[in-house]
Each structure stands twice: as C-alpha cells, then as structure tokens.
C-alpha cells in the first residue's frame, strides 16, 4: 500500500463544479482512450480502410462510362462524391461504438469519477476524427492511383479534406444522439442507416442532378451533402472557394447546434 495516509472526507478541498479547462482536459483524455482502443483493435478500422478502396473502384467503373462517357472524365465528379459519402458513412460507427461503450462496466467508473459529465461523449467524437482522416486520405490516394489529377493542387485537396472531416464530425452528432438514446448497438446501426442512405444518395454525389425528377431535385438541392460535394469539387477541381463552402459549413453548424444540445441532454439524463 501507499505510505501516505488517506485524508478524511471532511478535510478535503472539494469543488462543486467542473471548470471549462477541466472539461477540455477530460475530453482530450477520453479522446486519447479512443485512440488507444483503435491501436489495440485495428480491425475496427476495416470499414474506413476497405470502404474507400472498394467503393471508389466499384462506382467509378460501374457508372463512369454511363454518366461521363469514360472513366477518366468521371473521376473529378465521383472522387469528391465518394469521399463525402464514405467519410460521412463512417460517422455512423461513432454512435454504434458509443452505445457499446456505454453498456460496459468501465462506463460505471467514468460516471463515478469526479470528471466533466460530457467528457466520455466529447472524447469519443473527437477520437473518431482520426477515422475520417484515414478514410479521406485513402479515397484521394485511390483516386490518384486510378488516374485522378486534381487541378486545384495539393493545397486545395488538403483543404477539401479538412472540410469533409469537419462536416462529418458535425454529422456524427446525429448518430451520437441515436447512440445515446437507443437500447442496443444494432438498433443504432439500423436507425443510422435509415438516415444515412437518403442523405448521401439523394444528393449530387454520383449523378448529375438534372437527370432527376423535379420534386427530387428540390430535396437534392437543399441537402447539405450536395453542398458539401459541390464545395469539394470546386476546391479540388478548380481551386475555387465559393458559396458552396459557406453553405456546407452553415449546414454543419446547424446540425451541431441542433444535435449537440439534445444529445448532451439525453446523455446527462441517462448517466
């Protein structure tokens, strides 16, 4: 045992509230835990490593000829589309893992520690940005191997990557919400897919919007995912920063503004 005697309960300095600084520190520690877990179980990165490779190959060769005439001229269209679709898709895992995590015994300890209540949630979401980064890098790499040469140059590619990661982080709050309120991990997966599919497929990610019926065009054009895809295309293909970026950022902020508070509220009530 340790040689110092334990201070009695009455003689301790006790804090009533956790400060903002402590909240940030606790969240970073929880993010560090997320990274350690990824390192310990690298198989959980299968989705972010294989999906960009397989989807990019598949969609490019299936749709390339039909939509753009040939694969080469489809690449500038599909790579931003597939990038957004894949990275946002991986944010579903955030909710699933959060649910699994919350069921484990270790969460009891987190709940009984004098730490910021929000830290386990914030940390998990923060650690997941590493997954988005991996997916982003792999998708661009796949594109490059298949012959995609972004005209905007490496700087704009990196910028576009950052934008996608930031927006996916915003979207992950939606799935984190399901993760907090759902009863089982598989139901989180189920509900999240129902949200994810319309959001990513009812967009301009894979095909030009003007081939769609009018009523659908209306949704596709207001879908934040479409704006994000357009923003990425603008940046990587033309080195252009325009209104689409503003639109996608506003979309991202709106999602966080709605879902972060309700997720945190639900989480606090649950813990």
């Amino acid at each position, binding site marked *: *045992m*340790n*040689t*110092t*005697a*334990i*201070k*009695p*309960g*009455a003689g*301790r300095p*006790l*804090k*009533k*509230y*956790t400060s903002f600084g*402590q909240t940030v*520190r*606790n969240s970073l*520690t*929880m993010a*560090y*835990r997320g990274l*350690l*877990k990824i390192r*310990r*179980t690298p198989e959980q990165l299968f989705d972010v490593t294989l999906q960009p490779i397989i989807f990019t190959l598949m969609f490019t060769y299936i749709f390339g000829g039909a939509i753009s005439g040939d694969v080469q001229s489809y690449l500038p269209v599909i790579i931003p589309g597939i990038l957004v679709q894949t990275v946002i898709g991986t944010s579903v895992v955030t909710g699933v893992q959060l649910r699994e995590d919350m069921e*484990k*015994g*270790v*969460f*009891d*300890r*987190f*709940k*009984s*520690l*004098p*730490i910021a209540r929000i*830290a386990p949630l914030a940390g998990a979401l923060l650690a997941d940005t590493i997954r988005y980064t991996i997916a982003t890098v792999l998708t661009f790499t796949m594109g490059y191997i298949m012959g995609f040469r972004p005209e905007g140059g490496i700087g704009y590619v990196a910028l576009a990557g950052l934008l996608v990661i930031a927006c996916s982080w915003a979207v992950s709050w939606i799935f984190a919400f399901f993760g907090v309120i759902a009863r089982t991990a598989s139901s989180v997966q189920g509900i999240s897919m129902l949200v994810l599919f319309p959001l990513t497929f009812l967009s301009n990610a894979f095909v030009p919007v003007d081939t769609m019926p009018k009523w659908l065009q209306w949704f596709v054009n207001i879908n934040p995912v479409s704006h994000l895809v357009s923003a990425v295309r603008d940046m990587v293909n033309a080195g252009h920063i325009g209104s689409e970026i503003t639109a996608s950022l506003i979309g991202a902020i709106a999602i966080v503004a709605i879902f972060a508070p309700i997720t945190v509220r639900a989480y606090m009530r649950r813990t």
Partner: protein
Amino acid sequence: MNVLNQRSIEPNNGDWAVEANGLVKIFGDNKAVDGVNLNVRAGTIYGVLGPNGAGKTTTIRMLATLLRPDAGSARIFGRDVAKEAAVVRQLIGVTGQYASVDESLSATENLIIFSRLLGLGRAEARRKAEQLLEEFGLTEAAKRPLKNFSGGMRRRLDLAASLIAQPPLIFLDEPTTGLDPRTRSQMWDTIRRLVQSGSTVLLTTQYLDEADQLADRIAVIDRGHVVAEGTVDELKTSVGTSSLHLKVQDSNHIATARQTVEQVLRIPSSLNSEASTIMAPMANADLVTDLLIALREQGISLVEMSVQKPTLDEVFLTITGQGVKEEA
C-alpha cells in the same frame, strides 16, 4: 506490497461516512430496494450481507451516485448524493461487481487514463500506475491486454483503479465472488490495509465468513429490506457461532428429538427445508454430550450428526424466521 501500518491521521469517529435514510429504488413493478437505512462510521469496514437479488448492488449504486433513488436520501460525509453528486464523486471510489475497467486496453493504460482523468500530469500518472501495479502484484501483466486476465487479476486492477485518488470511502461490490481461496484472502488483506490507512470501506458479500473476517458492522439485507444490523458479534450470538445438525433414523421421532434438543440446549431449533434434519445454534459445545445422552435415553437413534458453521441460509432462517414457520 509494502504494508501500510501506521495510521497517521486518526479518523474522527464522530464522522459518518455514509448515512442512508429510507432509500427506495423501483424497477418496473419490482421494488429492488425498499427503504434501506444504513449508517457507516468513518474508518470502519461495513459489510452488507445478502443473497443474490437482495438489493445490495442497487443500494451501492445509489450511494455511489450511479443511480438516482426513487425515495429517501443518502449522504456521504455529510454531502447529499442527489444534490451534490459532483462533490460526492470526489470522496468515493467504486469497484463494481463486474470489473469497471476497459477490457480492450492494458492494465497500465487503464490506470493511466483514470489517473489523467483525475487530474494527474502525464509523468505523475505513469508513476502512479506503476506504483499501483506493483502494490497489487500486477507488474508482470501490466502490458498484457485485459482479455487474458484472470478474475482475480481483474478484481485487483479494478480495486487499484479505485484507489488512484485515495478516496476516503470505497465501495466494493462483492469483491471476492468467483475468486479462489488464495486470491480471496489476498483481497481480504488488501481491504484490511486500506482501512488501516484511514479509508472507510463499504462492501457487499454473499458470504457470512467474509463479513465475519472483515466487517466491523454488518447489515443483513433481504428483498430490499435491512433485516438485521449490528456488530459481527451481535449477529453471531443471534445465530450461534456454529450449528448442530442432527438427522434421526425414524422420522416419527423428529418432534420428540426437537423437544429434547430445545430442552437440553435451551435454544430454539429449526428444521431444514426437507424437514429431515434438525438444526440448532450451538453456543456451548459441552452441552452436546448431555444432548446425546438424553437422546440415547429416549431411544432415538441418529443417522448423522455434524457441527457446521452457520451458512447465510441459517442466518436468514434465524433472523427472518422464514422456513421455520411452515413446519412449526
């Protein structure tokens, strides 16, 4: 482990570590905890004894701010668990029935993360982790993932994690359930040393001998109620330190045999669930000779006679009086 034997700060014995008043928790239509009162003096080990499903874990979870009581109130060192949960959490360490450590990480990583969360710096956290691992004999296994840990190692790590902040009150939910006898007595030693260093321990157990070994006071809990409370000695006198089990050859003689037993031993007896064995607390071993002679004189022959430590069943039998009333 180097032993902490000096108690440098004498805990103020007027201090209550735990004061629980009429705690109630209802799950659906099941009253898991139904008006539990507990008072634990600082610097002592308090045992909550009860069978599975008695409400032990639920009670601990309420005291540890993990569950909100549906009624009643509880205070930890004078701080209300519901109103001042954040403060209470700075005063407690919780070791759950199912190890509350991260399965996918190593022992060191677990301790470092908990230390960091408790505000220790990077180097300090590493030192603390190493120190705790050494104290709990886990240094060799420090880097292995927890999946390969035995039950005993996991419990030790769990307890180590509860001690990082050196909380003055530690909750241990069935700390030795499922452990082999050797690991069990190691765990007991650890708990004793903990209290020597000035901590208060509230532990739950299903084993009477564990409560006997460790606890200063015991609450016996059954179906959400505290059915008995007192020092180990008080409890033992009500149950007897050991009990005499008699099996008579002819079942027609049971009633007579019981009378004889109660006359000679001057203590109420009971029957086991199959109504084949007479059980009586045995306070004075000397009287057994008299009893056997008395039985021989009445021509009652025995199939079996044994002296056993009272089991939890018997404690309940004696305290709640259930099981006896069907036959009597």
